[in-house]
């Protein structure tokens, strides 16, 4: 059983990237799911809007932290926790 936040994150990813929800496993790479760089920008925007957080994402970062869905979820959850702790 995953947390409501994880479910919402995956809902947003599925909707923005038009990927079937059941395909979204946490160890899946975004590239394997055919999620393009522009999809990622839209996903980040939607996640920031929904959770009222800021994600440190730069499309030029050469050590991308957005390789797998699990990394995206972890980053979002960290930012939510940081916001709640502030």
């Amino acid at each position, binding site marked *: 059983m995953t947390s409501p936040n994880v479910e919402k994150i995956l809902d947003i990813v599925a909707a923005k990237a038009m990927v079937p929800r059941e395909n979204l496993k946490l160890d899946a790479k975004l590239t394997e799911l055919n999620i*393009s*760089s*522009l999809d990622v*920008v839209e996903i*980040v*925007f939607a996640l920031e809007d929904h959770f009222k957080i800021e994600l440190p*994402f*730069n*499309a*030029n*970062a*050469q050590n991308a932290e957005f390789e797998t869905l699990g990394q995206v979820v972890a980053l979002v959850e960290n930012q939510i926790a940081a916001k709640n702790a502030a």
Partner: protein
Amino acid sequence: MHRVVVTGVGVASPLGCSIAEFTEKLFAGHCAIGPVTFTRPTGSITYRGAQVENFDASQHVDARKLSLMDRFSHLAVAAARQAWAQANIQPTPEFQQQCAVILGTGVGGQITMEEAYDRMWGNPTASRVHPLSVPRLMANANTSQVSMDLGLQGPGFTIASACASSTHAIGTAYHMVRSGMVRAAMTGGSEATLTLGCLKGWEALRVMSPDFCRPFSKGRQGMVLGEGAGCLMLERMDDATARGAKILAEMIGFGQSCDARDITTPDQGGMMRALQNALHDAGVEPTQVVHINAHGTGTRANDTTESAALKDVFGDHLHGMKTTANKSLFGHALGAAGALEMVATVLSLHHQRVPPTLHFVEPDPDCALVPITTTTETLPQGAIAIKNSFAFGGLNAVLVVRGC
């Protein structure tokens, strides 16, 4: 077919608003990138950008016409006047009717547009916008204002192809003069989009560098927005020679292509076809080209893809070529970038020097080239150079030019 030469250049740029100042700072490696701050009721916001600082439009534009223009037209008129003055043509009525004005811009009067939005959405009681909003913001205003300012009555239009706009404009003007359609052309482009709305838009795309623009360098973090205008006077070599004009360079080729693939991701194949088309148009072999003025935005995607396309076309010869990326000095002026960088390319050939690429840290294994970073590199007399521009939307343009 006519041979076509450049007899005048002009700039309104973050490196200065005269060719003398631009030339000095270009070859010295002056960085014009710094903070751009906006004040809002909720506090100030600062971005990184390259501004045309201390630009006094009244020094370049007739007082009665100042309020008719957005900044992108002020900059264009300032640059065109310099190019026109340097060419020193004494125009006859026939010449005026046979001289084209072909400029580029990415978006037109962005400042005017945002002022109107601010007035309408920021003030609940506002019921109207500035009466000159439409003639200021229309994308063709830069071409129209330059044509009126200089009295040039031949074909005139503005080309919009994002970051390749003014390169497409210069190439189109070159082909029009070469074919005999027109006798001469004032060409180039202008852009003034260092606005809060525009910077917010680029920020949302997540491609902005937090500090500097580092083309082809490992660790680069993206682009830095600039602004400005560049103009070139193109005319038939026979005309220029007959009146004893100083010839700065000869235009020899123009190539274009569409990627037809993705709205933002660059395509190696599309870039390669534009490069090959340009060399074919110029009738030169890859090994004859010695200098590259790259598109070099400092983004991961562009620099990796551009260097791979250059390697496809030039092969091992690429490693002996002298490549520079001007955006590290004066940012990315979008629709004016090609014009400012083409002026820089003409000056490089004319002065036989290569401007340095700034902020380079170390070679990137994913990039097939290492740019020139010193201020001491020279070019031989009569060298051949290319100027690349590869736009969002997959629209590619490459110019080929030879020193004289």
